[in-house]
């Protein structure tokens, strides 16, 4: 129920609606719960509603941290699927 995905705004449809893209899948999403959505924004979408904006700067900071610790510790790939070759 609380699951939600980040989606990029690809079209403003007016009247509290936008079109979003997640890996090629287009959806119509309500932006009634947030203000000032612009083209190219990333939204966190739950059950047809954007519940908040994805803060791209913060996401990049997290990803940079992950890359840094991975490089630092030279962790093995595929750790999430340890039984796979």
């Amino acid at each position, binding site marked *: *129920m*609380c*699951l*939600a*995905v*980040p989606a*990029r705004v690809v079209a403003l449809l007016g009247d509290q609606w936008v079109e979003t893209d*997640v*890996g090629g899948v287009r959806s119509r999403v*309500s932006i*009634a*719960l*947030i*203000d000032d959505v612009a083209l190219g924004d*990333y939204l*966190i979408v*739950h*059950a*047809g*509603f954007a*519940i*908040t904006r*994805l*803060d*791209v700067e*913060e*996401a990049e*900071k*997290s*990803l940079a941290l*992950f*890359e840094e*610790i*991975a490089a*630092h*510790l030279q*962790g*093995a*790939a*595929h*750790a*999430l*699927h*340890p*039984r796979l070759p």
Partner: protein
Amino acid sequence: MRYIRGFREGAAAAAFEKLIEAEVDPERDYHLMEFCGGHTHAIFRYGVEDLLPDNVHLVHGPGCPVCVLAMPRLDAAIELAGQDNVTLVSYGDMLRVPASRRRSLLKARAQGADVRMAYSALEALDIAAAHPGRQVVFFAIGFETTTPATAHLILEAQRLGLRNFSVYCNHVVTPAAIQSILDSPEVREWGQVRVDGFIGPSHVSAVIGSRPYEYFAEEYQRPVVIAGFEPLDVMQAIRMLVQQINDGRACVENQFTRGVTRDGNGKAQRLVAEVLELRPSFEWRGLGELPYSGLRIKSSFGEFDAERRFAMKAQPVPENAACQCPAIIRGVKKPTDCAIFGTACTPRNPIGSCMVSAEGACAAYYKYRRGPVQAAG
């Protein structure tokens, strides 16, 4: 998409595995409760438990909305759906949840009731507009992630002047549930459940912010780390909790900085406050009656309240005696402690609500646990 895939990177998970292993104190155990079913599934799907040292234990919490809905309230929805002129609309998960006498909304539909599945709550409005002769009821469930959509729905219905539309409101609030776990005798007196810290909900917190957790982090001296639903989010949050516990700190930290702020989504909060209000008490499956833990429609929007319009009554019913869902919801038992887990009760033919949903602990165990299922001894 970079903002999904990037948070599933294997090399970083391996690095977190090493960091956590180096940082845990081998002399003690760490019992961490993931409140959300979304986290439970991420943990099993990506095998996060396999990457943790043996003394870090994950306890599954009650954050699965269909799991915690009290059976009498589901029974009342099924009764309502059976009325001739009623169309009941709900989220997909809800339709398969077993009610008393092994009924479900899906079975009611097979018997002729007009029950529809919706991805978005707004679909219920379209159905009401298209069928003015029918009473369309939206069966609203969920935590704070889903609540603002319901509030918006009621305001839209009012704006459109829909007279044949109402909402059966079963929304619940997260902080009350966490507090009830910390106040429960299993935690306080019997010592059956140990919770040293919480992995906090991501999307609930996107709406309510991180501030509401500050009270019980302080009051109950338990750290809370709000975490995203991807495996690296969970790994990082576990590391942050281990660090807090090692340092003897108990504060609210935010790992999911890309979606959560301290204040949350103010507009969504205002919509909810305009339309809904706290009930003095609300019954949860597994947790019982909890004060100020559920929401109802304000009397100023009473015409859209299905409980008023249809004078709905929830009648107490006994739980299935074999089903351990109530204990599993409280974190007292694991799904594999249940005698009917994986035998009589499976996702295809669920007996308890935890086996139904994509957030239920039993469904996660059934779907992702490797090795043979062992019957409870």
